[in-house]
C-alpha cells in the first residue's frame, strides 16, 4: 500500500509521541508525581501547599493518577486524627522513571 507523504508524516509524529506517558505529561500531574517521587508519602494538605494547586484541581488529578494505578491512598492516624496519606505505587515509580528517561533521551537526541 502506498501512503501519501502527509499520512506518512502523521504516522511518524504519532510514533514519536507514543513514548510520552500522557497521564504523567500533564504539568499539574507531573508536578504531583515529582513531589511524590522524592518523598515516602504525604497527605493532601501537604501536597496542596507544595504544588500550589487548589483542592478541586488536586483532587481531579489525583483521581486520574489513582485510576492509572500510579498512586495509592492510605488512611493513617496521628493520635486520634485521621490523615489520608498519598504515595506512589511501584507501578507509579517505574512509570515516572521511564517517563524521565524517555524525555531525557528525547532531548539528548535532538540535533544541536
Amino acid at each position, binding site marked *: 500500500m502506498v501512503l501519501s507523504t502527509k499520512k506518512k508524516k502523521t504516522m511518524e509524529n504519532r510514533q514519536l509521541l507514543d513514548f510520552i506517558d500522557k497521564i504523567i505529561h500533564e504539568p499539574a500531574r507531573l508536578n504531583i508525581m515529582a513531589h511524590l517521587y522524592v518523598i515516602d508519602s504525604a497527605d493532601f494538605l501537604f501536597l496542596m501547599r507544595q504544588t500550589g494547586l487548589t483542592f478541586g484541581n488536586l483532587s481531579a488529578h489525583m483521581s486520574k493518577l489513582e485510576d492509572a494505578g500510579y498512586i495509592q491512598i492510605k488512611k493513617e492516624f496521628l493520635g486520634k486524627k485521621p490523615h489520608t*496519606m498519598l504515595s506512589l505505587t511501584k507501578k507509579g515509580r517505574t512509570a515516572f522513571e521511564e517517563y524521565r528517561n524517555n524525555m531525557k533521551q528525547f532531548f539528548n537526541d535532538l540535533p544541536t
Partner: protein
Amino acid sequence: MTEPMNLKDIEKKAYRFTFTDGIYDLTYATLLITIAVAPILRELIGLGYILFLVIPAPLLLLLGKRYISVPRIGLVKFNQRRKTTQKKIAIISIILLPLTIVLVLLTAAQIFPGPYGTLLGGYTVPIGAALFAIALLSLIAYFIEFSHLYVYGLAIGLGILISELLYDPVAPPWNSVIAFGISGTLLFIYGIIELVRFIRTYPLPKAENGIVN
C-alpha cells in the same frame, strides 16, 4: 516565570518547608531559658528542677507540631535518605551521651585540676564543654541540613563559657541567667515572629474546601 527545579531541589524545598513554622527555634529557646533558670529552680524545688530541664522543650516541639504545624501544612514522611540521616544522628548521640556523662562526672570529681586545670587560665573544662556543644550541634546541623542548629550550638557553647567567666564578677545564679537567658530570649522572640508569620501565611484550611485529611 518560576525557576526550573530538579528533583533534588523539590525534595530539599519540601524538607525545609517543615522547618518554617518557628517551632524548632522556640524549642531550643525554651531549652536555653530553662538552663538559664535551672540554678534558681534548684534552690526552690531541689532535684525536681531536672523535670523542668527535660520536659518543656520536647513537649513544646511535640504539641507545636501536632496542633499548630500539621493542621496548617499537612503531614509528610521523607524517604530512606532522610531516615538514614536520622539514624546516623541517633548513633552519634548514643555514642556521645555516655562520653558526656563521663566528662561531667570527672569534672565533679575534680579530676581535671592539676596541669590541665591550670591550662587556659583554669578554663579548660568550660572551653572544652563549649567546643563539645558547638561541635555536636554543628555535626547534627550538617547531617539534617538545618542551618539554625549552628546558631543554637553557638548559643549553648558561648553560654557555657560566659556563665563561667561571669562566675566571679556576678554571683550565681545570675551568671547562668545572663549567659543563657539573653540568647534564649532573643531566640524565643525570633521563634515567635516566625510562628506568627507561619500562622498568617498558612491559615487552617476551611472545612467547606473538603480538606478533611
